[in-house]
Each structure stands twice: as C-alpha cells, then as structure tokens.
C-alpha cells in the first residue's frame, strides 16, 4: 500500500482502497466464506430434499401397486336349496347359512368356469378355490342376502384374487418363490395366467383400497383404509377445531397479555416440557382422564382427537409464541398510539404478521398428530375395526375407528408379505391426506409472508 498522503485523523488501515474491479485479499477471503456459507445452505436443503426423494421413491415403489388389484370373473349358480333350506326367501332364515355354506358354491363355480374355458390343470378343487380370496364368500353371501329373489339363477360375480395371485401379477410373487411358498404353488400361478389369457382375470384400479374396511390377516387383498381414513379425518377435525384455537389463544395470552412473573415462566417451561413428553404418555393420560374418569368410550375418534390435541398443543404454542415474539414492537406501538386496544392491536396487526409462523406450527403439529400411533395404543384405537363409524353429526365421533398410522402399523405387523405393499400404499394415502390438509395452510402462509 502506498502511503502517499499523510495519515489523516482517524484514517486507520482503511479498507477498500484501490480498484473496485479487483477484489483485495481480504474481500476474496470473505467472499469465499460467503460462498461457502451459501453452499452450506444449498447443501443442507439438498440433503433434506435428497432424503425426501429417497424415502418417497422407496414408499412409492413399494406402495403404488396397492392401488391396483386383481379380480376374477366367475359365473356362480346360486343353488336355492343350499342357500335357503327353508325355501321361504326370508332373509333372517337365509342368514343362518354361514359363509362356510357358500364356499362350496364358489368352488364349484370356479372349477366349472375353468373346465368351460378349456384350461387344463392338475389342481384339485381345493387348490383351485385357493386362488380367490376368502373375502369372496362373504361378498357372495351379502349379495345373496341383499337380493334373495336372485336365488336359483346364475350370476356373473367378480371376486378378488388371493393375495399371492395378486402379487404374481404385480411381480412380487414368481414361480421361483412359489416353489418354496406353502401358500401357493407354481401350478396355481400357471392357472392364473391361463385365466388371464382367457380374459377372466384382470388387474384394475383398486377403488376398494380407499373405501373398504380392514380385513383379517388371511385376506390382505381385501384390506382397505376406509375406516382408517374416516377415523383420521374425525380425529383431525377434532384436533384442528381444538388445538389451533386453543394453541393460538394460549400463545396470545402468554406472549401479549400475561404479566411477566414466575407463574408465566412456569407455564412457559411447562409447555416446552410437554413437547418433550413421549407421545405414549399422552395415551396414558387419555386413558386415565377421558376414558376412566370422564367415561368416554374406548376406541373412539373423539378420545383420540382429544389426546392428539393435547399432544399437538405444545408444538403450536411454541411456534406461535416464537412468531409473535418476532413481530417488531414498533408495530404494536403504532396501533396502540392511535387508540387501538391491546386486543385490537393483537388481532388486527400482530396476529396477521405472525401468521406464517402459526401456520408452520400448525402444519408440523398436524403432521405429527396425523402420524402418531403410540398414544392411540392405550385408548384402544390401535385395533381391528371393520364397522364404519357414523357421520360426525350422528355421533360418529364416539364410534370405534382406527386411524391411518394405526393401519400402517398394523399392516407392517402382519405376517403375510402382501401387507407390506398395503402398508406402503397406506403411507402414500397418509401423505396425500397430510398434503391436502396442509394445502390451505401452505397457500395461506405464502400470502401472509412479508418483510418490513
């Protein structure tokens, strides 16, 4: 540095002497740091998104197949004297014939169909019947009970293929695995292929997956998410209706109105502590308070919703308080200065500015609530439930139901490998559900975002 001029008062080793087009060493160093910092940021996001892509790909690749389902067309003769021994077409009487009574009908129909189609097979009737789901006899029985006058006729019935056959057409089951598999033989797979060639077997969109109730371990092909979706929906209604208003109200009180004292500190610490309580403990609480003390029913979405509300509250409160805190005091001053009350100041100015943070808290809180299984375990919602709950206004909140994460958890525990696909499918549905639920929040948040 040429020090031509006499050191002027206050002229220290000045920065930025020299050409602006050339960066000096220090600036180069600082800019390098700047670039590094930026790259860290970008890398961080990339790591996050990469993980997401990875996880989503594995979920999708495992689960998308559950949206398709293989069915078999069989014309079944509804033999009148087997299904209605009394012969009076009284549904109550006909109901005495259990599903076990329907099994032979279906079996005969299958064997007949195969013979008619000219397919050669060495399988005996029992093995042939195994390629359709156990669910089909129940389907058939319900159909007959609903239409007693069709007795004696031959009806084309579309029945579900068994899980292994379904898996064969989705690539999960192969001839090689069938060799080893006790529940399916290569011969059965060949038969299925022949049926497909005849056009009797087809794989189509699995609408039932979204509407049907759960099915037992032996019928993975029939298991659906209907009850779980309803249950989750009900619970989320409760959570949204309670957690968001209570959470925001509590935060407003604590951040804007509460006097600064030991007691508020206690509440504050207390809330962050609640966030750290393992979710199953909320289940213990729910069982003790809502079921045993308040006498609410077991397995009911209302209780689940209440428990999840308590569990989500801390998240929403912490996020909301942080957002409220971030609103500059000058805005409050401005409103108070024109004679707005504190309440008006908060609701007209502070809250809208804190909205993005509140919505983020809500998104994260709901995501957490929607995905929780553990607290539901103790209040009876981790269950096998086949009856749909009623509509909410008919007391459906008090009917037994499950939830999507519960269904995922249950599916993953079942021994039949076909449930792996169902579990991933359920995860996809859960994520869709979550996305739909949060869409409004995400859009709103974009609108509320501003800098000042």
């Amino acid at each position: 540095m040429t020090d031509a001029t006499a050191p002027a008062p206050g002229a220290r080793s000045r920065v930025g002497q020299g050409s602006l087009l050339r960066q000096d060493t220090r600036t180069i160093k600082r800019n390098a740091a700047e670039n590094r910092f930026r790259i860290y940021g970008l890398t961080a996001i990339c790591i996050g998104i990469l993980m997401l892509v990875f996880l989503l790909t594995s979920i999708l690749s495992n689960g998308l197949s559950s949206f398709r389902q293989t069915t078999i067309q069989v014309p079944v003769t509804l033999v009148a004297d087997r299904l209605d021994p009394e012969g009076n077409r009284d549904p109550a009487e006909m109901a005495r014939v259990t599903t076990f009574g329907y099994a032979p009908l279906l079996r005969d129909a299958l064997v007949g169909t195969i013979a008619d189609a000219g397919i050669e097979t060495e399988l005996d009737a029992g093995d042939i019947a195994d390629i359709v789901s156990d669910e089909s006899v129940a389907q058939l029985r319900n159909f007959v009970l609903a239409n007693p006058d069709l007795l004696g006729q031959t009806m084309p019935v579309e029945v579900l293929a068994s899980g292994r056959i379904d898996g064969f057409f989705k690539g999960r089951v192969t001839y090689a695995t069938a060799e080893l598999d006790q529940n399916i033989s290569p011969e059965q797979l060949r038969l299925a292929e022949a049926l497909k060639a005849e056009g009797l077997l087809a794989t189509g969109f699995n609408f039932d997956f979204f509407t049907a109730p759960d099915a037992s371990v032996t019928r993975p092909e029939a298991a659906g998410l209907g009850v779980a979706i309803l249950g989750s929906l009900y619970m989320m209604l409760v959570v949204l209706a309670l957690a968001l208003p209570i959470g925001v109200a509590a935060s407003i009180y604590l951040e804007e109105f509460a006097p600064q004292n030991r007691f508020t500190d206690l509440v504050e610490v207390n809330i962050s502590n609640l966030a750290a309580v393992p979710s199953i403990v909320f289940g213990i609480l729910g069982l003790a308070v809502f079921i045993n003390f308040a006498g609410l029913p077991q397995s009911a979405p209302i209780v689940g919703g209440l428990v999840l509300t308590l569990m989500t509250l801390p998240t929403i409160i912490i996020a909301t308080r942080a957002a409220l805190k971030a609103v500059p005091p000058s805005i409050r001053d401005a409103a108070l200065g024109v004679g707005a009350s504190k309440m008006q100041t908060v609701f007209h100015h502070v809250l809208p500015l804190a909205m993005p943070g509140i919505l983020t808290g809500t998104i994260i809180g709901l995501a957490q609530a929607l995905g929780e299984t553990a607290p539901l375990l103790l209040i009876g919602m981790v269950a096998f439930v086949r009856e749909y709950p009623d509509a909410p206004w008919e007391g459906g909140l008090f009917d037994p139901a499950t939830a999507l994460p519960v269904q995922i958890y249950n599916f993953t525990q079942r021994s039949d490998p076909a449930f792996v696909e169902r579990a991933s499918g359920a995860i996809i549905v859960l994520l869709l559900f979550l996305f739909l639920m949060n869409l409004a929040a995400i859009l709103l948040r974009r609108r509320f975002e501003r800098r000042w």
Partner: protein
Amino acid sequence: ARDQVQVAGSSTVLPYASIVAEAFGENFGFPTPVVESGGSSAGLRRFCEGVGENTLDIANASRAIRAGEIEECAANGVDDIIEVRIGYDGIVFASQQTGPAFTAFEPSDLFNALGARVLVDGELVENPHTQWSDFNGDLPAVDIAAFIPGTNHGTREVFEEQVIAAGCEATGAFQAMIDSGMSEDEAEDACLAVRSDGVAVDITGDYTETLARIDSNPNGVGVFGLSFYENNTDVLKVATMSGVAPSTETIASGEYPVSRPLFFYIKGAHIGVIPGLKEYASFFVSDDIAGPNGPLADYGLVSDPELASVQETVENEVDMTE
C-alpha cells in the same frame, strides 16, 4: 350405549382374534367386534380396570393370567373371569432362505450359542463362542447372530424355559452350576441369563422386525411364531428342533417341543349385557373355527386337543377365580 364387543390384548392372539371377529361380523347379526392390540399386559390391565361400559369385555393374552393380576382385578370388582385357551402357538427358529444352513438345532446348540456362561471343556466360562461351528461341527462356520424375543415378550419366557433352560441342562451346565455351590434357584436364573455382548439381539417389536433384521444379516437366526413362518416360507428356512420339524401336527402331538398356549379372558359380568359377547366367545372356540381344520389352524394356530372342554367352559361360563 356400546353395541360391539370390545377386545384387547396380546398381539400374538390378534391375528386369530381378527380372523374370528371378521367371520363373526359376517355371519351374525352383531357388529364386528373391535380387537385391539397392545400387548397382554396392557390388555389385562385395562380388562381389570373394572366393570362397565367403557371397559373391555375380553382380554387376549399369550400367557396365563397371573395371580397378582387376578387380585388386582378383584380389587376393581372384576371377579368373574372366564379363562379360554384357544390353542397353541408354535415357536420356530428360522434363517434366510439363501443363507447358511441352520437346519437342525438341539436346545444345547442354542444354549451354547447364547447362554451367558457355558460349559467349555468341563469349565463354566463366559461364553467364548463366536461361530456356530465352535461347539457343533455340524453347524456352519459363520458368526453367531441370533434375534430373540425381547424380555417384554411372552415368547421370551417359552424361549428361556423350553430352549435355553433345556439346553443348559442338556449341556451339563446346570449340573456344573449346582456343583459350584449355587442353589437350584440361582442356577436356574444363571442358566437363563443370555449373553449381552451383542451376539443375541433382543427384538422388542414383532416378527416383521425380526424378518427385516434377518433380511439385512445373512447369518442371522431368528425366533418366529409358526404362523408367521408358514406365511413366509419363500424367504425363511426353518430349523428342526431335536430332529422334529415344526408344524401344527408335530406341535399338537407334542413332538416339537417349543410352543405355548394362547388365551383369552372373558369378563363374566358383561355376559348378557354386551350384545354378542357370549356368541363371539362360543363362535371362537367352535369346531368350525378353532378346530384342526378351521381357518385358525390354516393360519398356523395349533388347535387345542382339549377343545371340547374349552367349549364347555365357555358354554357354562365357568369362573376361573372360584
């Protein structure tokens, strides 16, 4: 008012209970019972919470109810309990289909592999074995890695009693312990101790977790329920125990040694109050369902040879506490 039967308890019984509940709902005028999982302990705890509408009607359990629990039940007014044994659950050892051949085990092999202190050359020592072939030349020379049920599982008890303890005695370790001055009880406890150096991995979850762990570890041997194995024969290779292959028949006949009974408990006070309770219980133990050719046996439940007496118990609502 509640109009469906409410069941909770062991996740081992859950699959069977769900099969029955489903069929019950399909064939009877009653709503399908709600069957919860959550473990025998939690199920019985809630079962014993009292009588009334918002308590359980039935608790599933993979072990018999304990005396302490019966007391607790009684303290809460649940003093009319009907015990129903629905059959037996076989416990099998299996490994990756494509992995090394663990096809024949004796209890002593498992004790030698997993016991905390074993007998080597007549000496009781901290388990030094790292490979199966270290103590049995017929077994493959691969690292020992066993996935056994965690200490919160009912299966663990069976595994300890019928495999480890049997192995302990068979290898002579038990005798050696007695000889070293332990009391019988102490020796028994010492027998049951499983090594804690990471070779034996406790599984607190379910069999799907065990399966996943075996999937990612070709040398792993895992403990499964018979029904789970039967649904996954394409990926699992089962081991014989004392030369007997596990199947519903060999277990029912007692040839295959490792199995345990499964139960459910009915709250007597609820019979006649909760619609369909008695019907469900009777349906469960009927020959059509729980018999050797019923759907439960198809799925892997070892049918109870004394099913008739169980049916009678249900029919007569025999209170076990009396």
